[in-house]
């Protein structure tokens, strides 16, 4: 008999633990999420399409998805630099910097939203310098970019950091002994190892940014067609008691999230395999 088969019999609590997990998961997550799809199923395909392809809704996709993509790209670049600096160098205050990287996870989004708005508004600490230069951040799409960059920062840092920490020095030493300069050994030896983690972090930051609401609405200005994000449009429809409209748009976002979740899972399996993990 294999050890696996023995352990299944030896340890107690399997029916209870799995049963409880499945019931709780169904009640809190699966059945309520199913409600969105069932509600949408009351629409004909043409009605559904009319709602989700309305110009104001399409403009909101462009804003939500487009700006989230740019924010995730900014985070990928700076997150990599950040992780590199935290792993490879020592400097005063490093522990505090390392701990504060997670601030966007811990700080409530509404607090982040009003703080960023105060900072970038015309009379704010940064806004008073930027506005005379012709750069308006608060109440423009640029403000959305700032908020989404803030929200996504920890994802890239925290996925790349452990991979960098586990990297053996031998690889780079071998590259150097074979005559590679520092940039070559980074680009050809270190960077390829980091790619799966970097892509995972990018996708996580992107997924989070697309759904983000709290930090954006304060700074966005929320002008239809210009700076109105998709989650806000769902709220607007709900406030007009247009449940069907809100739900149809929610389905578009959910399908997108599921596809992204699937991709992220695939990336993580790839990363683990590359990294020689489980």
């Amino acid at each position: 008999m294999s050890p696996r088969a023995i352990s299944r019999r030896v340890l107690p609590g399997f029916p209870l633990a799995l049963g409880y997990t499945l019931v709780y998961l169904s009640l809190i997550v699966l059945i309520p999420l199913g409600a969105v799809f069932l509600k949408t199923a009351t629409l004909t395909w043409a009605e559904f399409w009319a709602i989700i392809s309305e110009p104001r809704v399409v403009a909101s996709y462009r804003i939500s998805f487009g700006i989230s993509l740019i924010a995730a790209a900014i985070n990928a670049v700076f997150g990599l630099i950040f992780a590199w600096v935290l792993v490879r160098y020592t400097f005063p205050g490093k522990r505090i910097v390392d701990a504060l990287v997670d601030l966007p996870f811990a700080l409530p989004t509404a607090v982040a939203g009003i703080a960023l708005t105060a900072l970038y508004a015309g009379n704010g600490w940064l806004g008073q310098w930027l506005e005379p230069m012709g750069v308006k951040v608060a109440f423009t799409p640029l403000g959305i970019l700032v908020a989404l960059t803030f929200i996504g920062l920890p994802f890239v840092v925290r996925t790349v950091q452990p991979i960098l920490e586990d990297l053996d020095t031998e690889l780079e030493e071998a590259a150097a002994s074979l005559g590679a300069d520092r940039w070559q050994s980074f680009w050809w030896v270190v960077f390829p190892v980091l790619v799966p983690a970097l892509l995972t972090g990018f996708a996580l930051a992107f997924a989070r940014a697309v759904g983000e609401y709290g930090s954006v609405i304060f700074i966005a200005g929320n002008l239809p067609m210009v700076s109105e994000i998709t989650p806000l449009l769902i709220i607007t429809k709900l406030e007009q008691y247009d449940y069907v409209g809100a739900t149809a748009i929610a389905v578009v976002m959910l399908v997108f999230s599921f596809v992204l979740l699937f991709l992220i899972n695939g990336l993580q399996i790839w990363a683990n395999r590359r990294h020689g993990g489980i």
Partner: protein
Amino acid sequence: MAVTVATRWTAHSRRFEASAATREPAWVKGILIVVALAFFSLFLLLPLVTVFAEALRRGWEVYLAALVEPDALSAITLTLLVAVIAVPLNLVFGVAAAWAITKFDFPGKQLLTTLIDLPFSVSPVIAGLIFVLVFGAQGWFGPWLIENNIKIIFAVPGLVLATVFVTFPFVARELIPLMQAQGREEEEAAVVLGAPGWKTFWYVTLPNIKWGLIYGVILCNARAMGEFGAVSVVSGHIRGLTNTMPLHVEILYNEYQFAAAFAVASLLALLALVTLVIKSFVEWRGRQAMNAGQEL
């Protein structure tokens, strides 16, 4: 969030700085540190400082008055109440799910793990919407609830449900990789030697997962107290009744009571800072426990 206690440690820099092959020229190092710190100050430090600066802009009296005002107090109480219900629910679930997934083999395990992570990829606004569709006046149970005079949406149960949904994966996703790494042998030995199931869990498993558990709980709690989007949909924004702290911040801000809004926000920012301090401490203890385990 995707990173568990077991996989993180610092003091790696010394290893890389020791050899010329893994060291950059001083000017490259300098530029990278300056870029990282500039990004850090711009995106993390400045917003944090702004919260406290704006809160205290009109002096301590205005600050304190904003916190002891009845609506603020009821928002604080409600936030605590919601967290006190939601966090233990997800704690029990997280332990049960991790036990089932890591201690046993069954088909569909990978799918179950993915489904547990699902709430993280759902927009908070949709998290609120789904409960409106189920329990709202026009929802599945709407008519029945109205007949029996039970309020869920625009009332406290709705806030709890939305919060439970958005904080659903926190404890489970910290415990699963940790318990996976620890294997099953210790528990199997205890059971074979005659220990009953719950004793095995209490004396064998729990001490091993203690730090991961605390880590998951504090992250879960921070999100539960700070959630905005999901509760905003189900709250109805009734002052003194269904306003949590983040919603109270929004109302004050939209009424141009900036000092008061930032005063309440500063409490939430303090909560975030305390969370990060505990998190760093737990990570440090987790590393110590792991190092001690390796020496044995």
